[in-house]
């Protein structure tokens, strides 16, 4: 399923200009709205974007609460390694995404397990991230064919998403959100005050490891839409905005999901009608929302 996917992607951002994607805006909202849903690729993109935004909104809220943004970034970087390794090995890209992100989460958990203080932990996280990127670049240069697709691996594209891919995204998202939903209360407790939670008999370490694994999954999902480098736009920014606006957990998660959804939908629509990449719109919109919230709060 995913094997043919990398070749179906646009060869560079430049091709987007000349491809049929750029249909232009007629300024008639009904025609334009209908045009947005006409093509299967756009239906798939919107469905995938919706799934990814919901998952990123939920998991991102916990990630921001736990101050694990650096870990999330490092995991998103391993998504690039996974995709390029899978292309090189000729296995479906999805296996690369989920496999390597899971492995990255375990490595991070191991590095955090031996931590003595904050500075050694951040050095370990940084080193893992740099190594993952270096290996990803190695795989890309060994696999000459994909060098043009490098931009879309790093910065995302909404073209060429297949219906089976959407299905996989949906299954993983439901599983991830279910796990977090079941563990929500102890996870919240362990995130806010790990010492008291531990004294209260909450398995803090196990929860931390489990959360990193779910984070790995959601990063692997998100990076298929936004690209490995722009995962943050959906994972951190809506969640950070929500936490600026409300301290209440449930309301915050709902707000974070709503923001992620709005940003994804508007970003996809804008990218559909213009020549510039979707990653730019999603990052800019979510950053604008964050700024507004910061001024209001």
């Amino acid at each position, binding site marked *: 399923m995913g094997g043919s996917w990398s070749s179906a992607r646009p060869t560079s951002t430049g091709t987007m200009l000349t491809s049929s994607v750029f249909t232009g805006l007629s300024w008639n909202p009904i025609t334009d709205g209908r045009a947005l849903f006409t093509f299967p690729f756009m239906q798939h993109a919107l469905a995938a974007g919706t799934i990814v935004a919901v998952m990123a909104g939920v998991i991102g809220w916990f990630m921001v609460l736990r101050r694990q943004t650096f870990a999330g970034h490092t995991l998103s970087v391993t998504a690039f390694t996974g995709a390029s390794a899978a292309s090189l090995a000729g296995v479906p890209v999805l296996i690369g995404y989920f496999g390597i992100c899971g492995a990255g989460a375990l490595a991070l958990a191991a590095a955090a397990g031996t931590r003595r203080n904050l500075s050694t932990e951040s050095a370990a996280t940084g080193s893992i991230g*740099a190594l993952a990127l270096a290996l990803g670049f190695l795989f890309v240069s060994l696999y000459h064919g994909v060098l043009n697709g490098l931009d879309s691996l790093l910065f995302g594209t909404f073209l060429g998403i297949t219906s089976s891919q959407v299905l996989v995204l949906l299954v993983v998202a439901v599983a991830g959100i279910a796990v977090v939903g079941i563990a929500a209360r102890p996870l919240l407790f362990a995130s806010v005050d790990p010492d008291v939670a531990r004294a209260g008999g909450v398995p803090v370490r196990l929860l931390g490891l489990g959360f990193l694994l779910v984070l790995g999954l959601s990063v692997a999902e998100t990076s298929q839409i936004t690209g490995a480098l722009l995962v943050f736009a959906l994972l951190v920014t809506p969640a950070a905005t929500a936490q600026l606006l409300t301290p209440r957990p449930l309301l915050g998660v709902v707000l974070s999901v709503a923001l992620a959804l709005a940003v994804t939908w508007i970003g996809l629509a804008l990218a559909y009608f213009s020549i510039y990449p979707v990653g730019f719109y999603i990052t800019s919109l979510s950053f604008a929302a964050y700024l507004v919230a910061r001024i209001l709060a």
Partner: protein
Amino acid sequence: MLAQEFMRNALVAGSFVGIACGLIGWFVVLRAQVFAGDALSHVAFTGALAAAALGVDVRAGLFVATIGGGITMGALGDRARADDVVIGTLFAWTLGLGVLFLSIFTTNSSAGNGTAGVRVLFGSIFGLSRTDVEISVALGVLATAVLMALARPLLFASVDAAVASAQGVPVRVLGLVFLGLVGLVAAQATQAVGALLLLGLLAAPAGAAHRLTARPWLGLALSAGLALAAVWIGLTLSYVFPTLPPSTMVISTAVGIYAAAMSLPLLRRLLG
């Protein structure tokens, strides 16, 4: 190997990049600001591509963006230590802007220069010109000199900010200057190992040095030495095996050294 001019250029520039990254990285790790360093490297990407899209000299874009980014980050954060979430949101957007500039640049340039993004992201140390090398050497010397001049108060401020500021050390200003310096080194290293990989040179040798010794001066020297070793070994490996990209080999060596330093206590326990 040394007969090739591109190799000599790479080794000279790489050595100065390595020393500067090793020294500044030691403080970055001490201050737990690796994430800020990471964000600055992404700012470097956007700066370089903005300059390319506007048709200005890429180096100018690099330096303006990273030094400005460092100072902004310091100013936004509490006591010149930016918060993780603030850094994350800021640099997600910076990268988004970088993508915009990349697409403007690739659609506008008549030469069809589609690899510009790749070069900025992953470096092109074998393609450095004579001027690039000279700039790299000058910046390495400058960054080292400033850092060494500030080393004592900076060390004090990093270890115990409250006591240092009570003693009259300008902690906030030092933090700002330090992030500006990190930006300078990030811009210098971007040309060699690329915006995405320079974090490896900042974090890995310094992390290993912190693991091996708690003494500051020894640690600084060790960090610079390890970074230098990583550059030399990496470049040699890439020269011997031309399919392996140089930046990958440099970073892999650096992380290998870090992993070795981390597993040293484990080895000792197994042997003894």
